[in-house]
């Protein structure tokens, strides 16, 4: 937190100064009202003009200091939040990963948005907190200059009263907050039902969903009404307490004025100042809450920023003239792949298949084992450099907003390569069905496309990366058989001479490989062509052909 705010130090200082000026101005207004009324008794019209001029000057000063103070404070806060948001994003996207461990995407997004905003809000809280402190001191000086006993009464009386309202208010406030949360759930549930609309429609469960929503909405209503009542009660308490305080000041001030210790105008000023003081003192309340929230948020942000990396060590860069020989020895699995081979890997257990992709991508390092690329251990390579030479794509892979063309080219592959990759993955066919072709814009993760269409675009992207070594995991599960067979042979053609590993149980893909390795119960069970294994191995037939 400190770090993020230190960068905004200048803005914070400037805005704190300006906000202080604003508060001093606001405090002067009731004081001046008293002065002017005082002069009504014994002054002339010249006095009125003079003091109204002073009031005008005070207004100009307070207005401008508020204007630029508030802007500077918010700028500091927003800029700090923005910087943190980018740091969180960069940390999450860091080559070595690890930020997602133990955190759901939703939680990370809320850290990157809400928590960074709360840390930023600390800048604003510091500004207004400082200004409130100065305002209290300034008011105290004014009050004490009017009358020492009255000033002391206000200054010593107000803090315990504020404390009292907080003590009474706190449990009420907490109760109100939990009930508010209950209330907010109603809109959450409505949103969830609407996002599952197709499922509800398909099930013909509209009426069941309507009924369920009505129940939730009713219980949320009960909760929010309770919360509104609690809040109203709390406000009543605050109103009573401040009324009581004002009465005491007015009575004591009145008696002092009647005895001639202070003037009538000073009495009015004192009452006005006492009323004004409630403002800065209640500022302490929210500033305290904001600081506490900011600290909690800063801890969450810091936890992400300092999250241990998923793969540590190794920063050599990959040799540019990559042959593409892979030697994997993990636990009891030993797999050797020669340069330029097109190899199928069949894993009966989907978890093992996913693990191998992660290991080759160096999203994770093996606990027990070693993987070598051209004789160099993957663990000794910088992950970014490794991925430039060895591209291992998970089964679940995301498409991002943009045109189909840019989704495939990633704005770096040449148009010939993109063209060839689109054809090989049959993604050109997807583009043809859309009005704008390859320039069609995919938004929201391309959810308007069918699963098969998304897979083909994702496959084209993997092929267009033109990596010396390519590893694909079940790239065509949602593609129909004819298309899948066509894709298989084209992928073989496109990847000729470069190491390619297909981790899949799809017979159409396996049929075009040079060789298939069957992993079963944590070890290599068989190694041969698709035809041989299909003819000679029961487990293979069961896993692939069933």
């Amino acid at each position, binding site marked *: 937190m400190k770090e993020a705010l230190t960068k905004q130090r200048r803005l914070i200082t400037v805005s704190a100064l300006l906000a202080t000026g604003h508060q001093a101005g606001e405090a002067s207004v009731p004081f001046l009202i008293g002065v002017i009324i005082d002069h009504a008794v014994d002054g002339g019209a010249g006095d009125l003009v003079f003091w109204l001029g002073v009031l005008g000057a005070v207004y100009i000063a307070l207005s401008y200091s508020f204007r630029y103070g508030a802007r500077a404070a918010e*700028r500091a806060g927003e800029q700090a939040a923005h910087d943190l948001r980018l740091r969180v994003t960069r940390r999450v*996207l860091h080559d070595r990963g690890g930020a997602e461990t133990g955190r759901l995407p939703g939680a990370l997004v809320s850290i990157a948005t809400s928590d960074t905003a709360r840390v930023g809000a600390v800048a604003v809280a510091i500004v207004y907190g400082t200004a409130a402190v100065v305002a209290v001191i300034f008011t105290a000086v004014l009050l004490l200059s009017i009358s020492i006993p009255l000033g002391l009464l206000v200054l010593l009386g107000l803090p315990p009263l504020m404390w009292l309202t907080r003590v009474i208010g706190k449990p009420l406030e907490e109760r109100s907050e939990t009930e508010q949360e209950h209330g907010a759930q109603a809109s959450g549930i409505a949103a969830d039902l609407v996002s599952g609309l*197709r499922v509800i429609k398909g099930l013909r469960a509209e009426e069941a969903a309507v009924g369920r929503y009505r129940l939730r*909405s009713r219980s949320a209503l009960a909760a929010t009404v309770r919360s509104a009542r609690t809040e109203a009660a709390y406000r009543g308490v605050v109103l009573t307490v401040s009324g009581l305080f004002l009465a005491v000041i*007015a009575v004591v001030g009145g008696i002092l004025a009647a005895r001639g210790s202070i003037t009538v105008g000073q009495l009015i000023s004192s009452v006005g100042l006492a009323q004004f003081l409630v403002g800065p003192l209640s500022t302490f309340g929210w500033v305290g809450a904001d600081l506490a929230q900011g600290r909690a948020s800063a801890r969450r942000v810091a936890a992400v920023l300092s999250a241990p990396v998923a793969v540590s060590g190794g920063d050599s860069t990959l040799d540019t003239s990559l042959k593409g020989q892979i030697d994997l020895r993990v636990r009891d699995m030993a797999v050797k792949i020669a340069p330029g081979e097109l190899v199928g890997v069949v894993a009966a257990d989907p978890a093992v298949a996913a693990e191998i992709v992660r290991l080759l991508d160096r999203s994770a390092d093996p606990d027990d084992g070693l993987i070598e690329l051209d004789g160099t251990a993957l663990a000794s390579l910088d992950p970014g450099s490794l991925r430039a030479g060895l591209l291992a794509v998970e089964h679940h892979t995301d498409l991002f907003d943009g045109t189909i063309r840019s989704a495939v080219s990633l704005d770096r592959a040449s148009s010939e390569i993109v063209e060839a990759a689109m054809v090989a993955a049959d993604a050109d066919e997807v583009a043809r069905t859309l009005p704008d072709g390859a320039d069609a814009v995919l938004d929201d993760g391309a959810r308007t496309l069918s699963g098969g269409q998304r897979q083909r675009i994702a496959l084209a992207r993997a092929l267009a990366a033109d990596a010396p070594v390519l590893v694909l995991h079940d790239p065509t599960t949602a593609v129909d058989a004819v298309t899948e067979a066509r894709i298989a042979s084209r992928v073989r053609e496109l990847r000729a001479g470069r190491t390619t590993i297909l981790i899949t149980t799809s017979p159409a893909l396996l049929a075009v490989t040079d060789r298939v390795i069957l992993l079963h119960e944590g070890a290599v069970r068989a190694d041969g062509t698709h035809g041989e294994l299909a003819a000679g191995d029961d487990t293979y037939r069961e*896993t692939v052909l069933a």
Partner: protein
Amino acid sequence: MTTMLPIAAGRRTRAVVLVFLKPQRARLVGALALLVAGTIAGLAAPPLLGHIVDLASSGGTTGEFVLAGVGLVAAALVEAALAGLGVALLAQVGEDTLARLRERFVESALRLPLEQVEQAGAGDLTSRVTNDVAVVAEAARTALPEFTRALLTIVLTLGGLAVLDWRFLVAALVAVPVQIYTVRWYAKRAVPLYAKQRVAVAAQQHHLLATIDGAPTIRTFRIAGEHSGRVAARSQQAVDLLLRGIALQTRFYARLHVAEFAGLAAVLATGFFLVRGDAITIGTATAAALYFHGLFNPVNTALALVDDAQAAASGLDRLVGVADLDPPAHEPATVVDGPAAIEVRDLDFAYRPDRPVLRGINLTVARGERVAVVGATGAGKTSLAKVIAGVHEPTAGTVTVPAGEAVLITQEVHVFAGPLADDLRLARPSATDDEVRAALTAVDALGWVTQLPEGLDTEVGEGGHTLTAAQAQQVAFARLMLADPPVAILDEATAEAGSAGARILERAAATALSGRTAVIVAHRLTQAVAADRVVVLENGRIVQMGAHPDLVATPGLYATLWQAWSDSRQ
């Protein structure tokens, strides 16, 4: 081609809100009466303070001061009690009206034909259900009571000023033209700016979510630089707009400061001359000044709420627009005796008139028959499934389902937020725990369900335990078991899980379909082999129909498909 869902005109919205308010009329009147009484009690304070000032200048006794002090305390107590009750009652009116409105809205939204929702784009309904409901709720919760209270305080304070001396009222009104100008000036700039702000903030959120969700893909393809650049650009855009909003607000307050000063100076000058002319006491002048100073906060509150109110009003228009559609509830299908379960006659279907998707489809499915629909991507399989399921209306021709209810299960899996048992009970609200368990057992899911932290009561879906794609699909099949419809339509329901997972799902699907008439959009030809009959679609037409062995033996599209499929298995 998108057609937005309707947005109600302001007049219609007001009429609907009035109808919703009607049963609450007594409460509303009571709340307003309490608020008025409470505010008046509060307005007794400045004259009492003025009285103390007068006592001070005329040398009153301690007893008189204390009496005035007691009056001040009493005023505060009465104000606190009455205004508190009034606010609570008003909130109840607002909340209750809001609850009934949002229920009607959700009811209408859930009953809307899917076609209409899809034409409007998925975001339209979602943004109404999240943003607009939240904006309106927030307004009902905080803005409405605060605004009412501020407005009453302003009006009654002006009345109080007039009671002190009519000339004070005239002086106070000096501020009004400046305030009216300021609000107009502000609203004109604020509304479009805040709309832009909301769009920018939503875009930033959307982008962050996509980036963080896709982090593994981004790392794999080494595109972190571009993506953090995009996040930075969106975030900066949102920050810039937020700061522009702040700048606008500070200019708004600067103008209000002018109004404050003008009014205060006028009231003070009036008091000054009236006191000198002995028209009023100094206490009255004090009361007037305090009244006017006390107007600052409510005026700022009321004016600042103007844009909340505008946002809430446009949110309401969007809610009422959908609520007003009020589509009929889904009638349970009637069962007609006879051999046919599904009858499709001369069906044409198109999403857009110039692009026919299905042409001249004729198909009768017998009760208990299992039909697989096969064809290349884009042949119209999914459209046929949706038309049979009643999701889309035929462009021409008829589709009837004499067998009764038809349930559609697609590859789009959604797990509803809340306990898993509640999700399943959407399909049959009356299902007992045993029935729920039986359904899960049938689809091989009870094993992992019992291993969840709290079994059937585990919170799943958004904010809860995340299920894998395959588990979510098993849940979909379990729902099908519970809904127990005579006809089931499956579209790509086993596609997304990866090949090994697909086999588990195929088993689950087979169990869930047993005893039902089924239409299956088949990706893996194993599903076609197991079907009683295969329908082959090409470019929106049925080109072949028959049992698997017959079709394999006949030269044609299916035989080619089968060749490709089985070749890969040799």
